[in-house]
């Protein structure tokens, strides 16, 4: 049985998203993420922090859609990946750098959660 939703679905071309490979490390002050996104240009890249989600989406550049290929092991790639982030991250302090197909994100931890040295007052 074909439902209306089913019929509607067959018409649309579903966009395929790839999951970029990622390396993540953590220090006392920050989290650093490195994602592999070859063929992505700055203008097509979207990095959104929405409550406790960090969403990275990127559409392949129009120039990537090469037609009439003789042989192909890859095609134009759209990327999408979401990370859950905690409340320890300062939402207003995120650095992003796109270089050589690698996106580097630095998420700084908020001041409240950073380790703090407490000075002892000598009282005598």
């Amino acid at each position, binding site marked *: 049985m074909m439902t209306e939703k089913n019929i509607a679905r067959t018409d649309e071309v579903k966009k395929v998203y790839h999951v970029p490979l990622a390396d993540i490390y953590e220090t006392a002050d920050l989290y650093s993420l*490195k994602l*592999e996104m070859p063929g992505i240009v700055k203008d097509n890249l979207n990095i959104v922090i929405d409550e406790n989600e960090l969403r990275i989406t990127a559409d392949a550049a129009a120039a990537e859609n090469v037609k009439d290929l003789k042989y*192909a*092991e890859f095609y134009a790639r759209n990327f999408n990946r979401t990370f859950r982030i905690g409340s320890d991250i300062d939402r207003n302090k995120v650095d992003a750098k796109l270089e050589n197909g*690698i996106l580097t994100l630095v998420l700084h931890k908020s001041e409240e959660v950073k380790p703090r040295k407490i000075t002892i007052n000598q009282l005598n």
Partner: protein
Amino acid sequence: MYTNNIFNDMIKLRSLFDDFFEEKPGYETSRDFPPVQIKEEEDRIVIRALIPGINADNIDIQLVDNSLIISGEKKEDYENHPYIRRERLFGEFKKSIKLPFRVKNDDVKADLANGILTITLSKSEDAKPTRIKIN
């Protein structure tokens, strides 16, 4: 108006499966690194390879007979910190691509941009069709 239909759940299940099979890593990992794309034009051939995170200094391109050999090393960029996740791969690589026709050895252009290497080779004069005159 929306009415509940048991088939809606079935469609949802199907999209779950679709997502599972369609969400894949950035490229076919079963292939030899780097994945390539070949486009043949009338008098040239354009080869593109995905090499994110590799500098031009660490790539070596050679023309041997009628093969193009791309080799190099993807140097690891790990920093001295505890990693939560390590998915990226590093190491040396070498890939040979057989060209469909002879090319001009001195007319090769290689560009690296956004992690994609584009090599343009032009067809050798010998490989172009020549008309033979009948006496």
